[in-house]
């Protein structure tokens, strides 16, 4: 037994109390005995017990009445009812009132051990379940979204505010900004968190596939429909459905979706039974839906149905101060998953990352760090480990001289300040490189 399970025995017969107490103490349980229901209820107000074992026939309040009162006070309590005068009626009544089990005295020693073992297992499983739920919630908590910049703080505040409501949410933002992560955070902080969050990537599915995916289908509805299948809306009952890339759905699906959002009921493909499901909708897009409405490619009524709350997720270039935090987070993540010892990142590399405009946003940064850890020296991520050369931010360069200086620094970084190799790569001799370094005041960093 990992933790000592506590038992409360309620019986008016001293011999029964003593026998049970003795038996359970030998099994390692913490046991308390009382002789009537009134004392038991008083004790339960002061102390918690994992399992309560009560006799039915007792002077004053009987065991069945006590069971009802215990259950009204503590619905989760495990109460075992025992009697020497078993009848079907009392057994049915006890179980209806929420008794864990009903046993007749005397019991077989093995039955008693099994009974308590099963009750203990239920307690352990319940505790484990609570612990795991907490872990799952923590995994997807708002706190797990990395960022300390003002735009991120505002976003997180909005997420927490929106999570409490049941409103439909549209998440907008560039590709790779973490729209699904924000959707998960909204779900994890809502009252629906103990129910599933179902994700559908609308852009990845053709119209007919999406229809079958969302609404489900009946056996024989189309070629290949060899069995009945629940749709995502049905699966998301009591939970949340996340529709990614909502802008890509066809006009026909837009009508279908509008109807489902309004009625929360639908029929499976090939079915004739109306199915009702209680779900919250969160959708995401990297396109401007309003513009699509104006252009006539997205239904206006659906747009207004979806656009109850609109959350814009900032691009990474709008929150460059979060880059060091994100880099550390990804380094930890990938070093752990690759079973490597933690690496650091050199200052110059971090600066280069903060200068970069990240068209692929956090996803691009994540991939960059993963790649750098794979190809790097295993100790420190250097500029040359980062694939920044193609799109490094040159827009701030104003003159040719400045451009030349930046390129020389970049090449020196790449070749670890080895003059010969850098000069060779630049197609100039070493003396020229030294002269240019002197001219542009370029010095090797400490």
């Amino acid at each position: 037994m990992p933790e000592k399970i506590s038992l409360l025995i309620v019986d008016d017969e001293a011999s029964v109390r003593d026998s049970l107490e003795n038996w359970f103490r030998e099994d390692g349980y913490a046991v308390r005995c009382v002789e009537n229901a009134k004392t038991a209820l008083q004790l339960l107000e002061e102390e918690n017990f994992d399992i309560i074992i009560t006799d039915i026939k007792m002077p004053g309040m009987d065991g069945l009445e006590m069971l009802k009162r215990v259950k009204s006070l503590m619905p989760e309590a495990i109460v075992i009812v025992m009697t020497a005068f078993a009848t079907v009626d009392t057994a049915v009544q006890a179980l209806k009132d929420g008794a864990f089990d009903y046993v007749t005295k005397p019991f077989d020693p093995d039955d008693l051990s099994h009974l308590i073992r099963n009750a203990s297992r239920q307690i352990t499983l319940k505790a484990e379940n609570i612990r795991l739920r907490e872990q799952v919630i923590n995994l997807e908590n708002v706190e797990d979204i990395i960022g300390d910049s003002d735009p991120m703080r505002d976003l997180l505040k909005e997420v927490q505010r929106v999570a409490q409501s049941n409103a439909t949410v549209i998440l907008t933002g560039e590709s790779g900004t973490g729209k699904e992560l924000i959707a998960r955070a909204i779900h994890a902080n809502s009252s629906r968190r103990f129910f599933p969050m179902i994700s559908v990537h609308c852009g990845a599915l053709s119209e007919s596939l999406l229809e079958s995916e969302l609404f489900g289908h009946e056996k024989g509805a189309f070629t290949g429909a060899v069995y009945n299948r629940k749709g995502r809306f049905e699966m998301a009952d009591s939970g949340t459905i996340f529709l990614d890339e909502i802008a890509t759905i066809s006009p026909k699906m837009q009508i279908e979706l509008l109807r489902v959002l309004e009625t929360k009921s639908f029929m499976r493909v090939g079915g004739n039974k109306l199915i009702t499901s209680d779900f919250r909708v969160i959708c995401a897009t990297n396109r401007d839906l309003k513009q699509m409405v104006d252009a006539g490619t997205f239904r206006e009524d659906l747009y207004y149905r979806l656009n109850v709350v609109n959350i814009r997720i900032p691009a990474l270039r709008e929150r460059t101060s979060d880059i060091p935090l994100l880099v550390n987070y990804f380094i930890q993540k990938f070093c752990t998953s690759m079973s490597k010892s933690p690496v650091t990142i050199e200052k110059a590399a971090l600066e280069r990352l903060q200068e970069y405009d990240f068209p692929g946003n956090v996803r691009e940064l994540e991939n960059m760090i993963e790649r750098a850890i794979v190809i790097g020296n295993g100790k420190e991520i250097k500029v040359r480990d980062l694939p920044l050369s193609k799109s490094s931010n040159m827009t701030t360069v104003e003159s040719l001289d400045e451009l030349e200086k930046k390129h020389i620094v970049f090449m020196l970084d790449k070749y670890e300040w080895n003059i010969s190799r850098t000069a060779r790569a630049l197609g100039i001799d070493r003396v020229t490189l030294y002269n240019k370094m002197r001219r542009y005041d370029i010095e090797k960093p400490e």
Partner: protein
Amino acid sequence: MNLIRLISLGYFDRQLLENVAEDVSACFTLKTETIVHFHDLEPYYDSNRRQYDANRLLAYIEAEFRQEHQKTIGLVSVDLFIPILTYIFGQAYLNGYAAIASFYRLQNELYGLKQNNLLLKDRLVKEINHELGHCFGLIHCYDPLCVMRSSTYVEDIDQKSKYFCTKCQSHL
């Protein structure tokens, strides 16, 4: 210095008493003393259950034989019960001075098998060690071979050894 006393109550084979005492002494590495106590068990008989009340017998042993630094176990050949259970092999006061054990349900004959005195002695030694273990403060153990493993059937008793596991031994 601790002493273990094995006291037979009612009819009990003298040779069996001596044999088990020797094994118990070896397992506990303590001196044992055997006493043949001619005590009438009739007052402990429950005619409704046709068994003997172990709680009352245990209380009698405790009252009659309790002594500091001594653990006493009463041994009987009759079927024992406690109010809540259909039968017991034995019982003890946890961290107390007295215990009781019966060989009635340890006999092969009761299960339609051939009499086996060696097996009976072996089972009785395990039962005595188990109950005395409780007197020394040990609770049930999950080690399948430890004598402190809970046993509700004779088959369970046969599967464990008569010795204490390292963990239980360290608490003795």
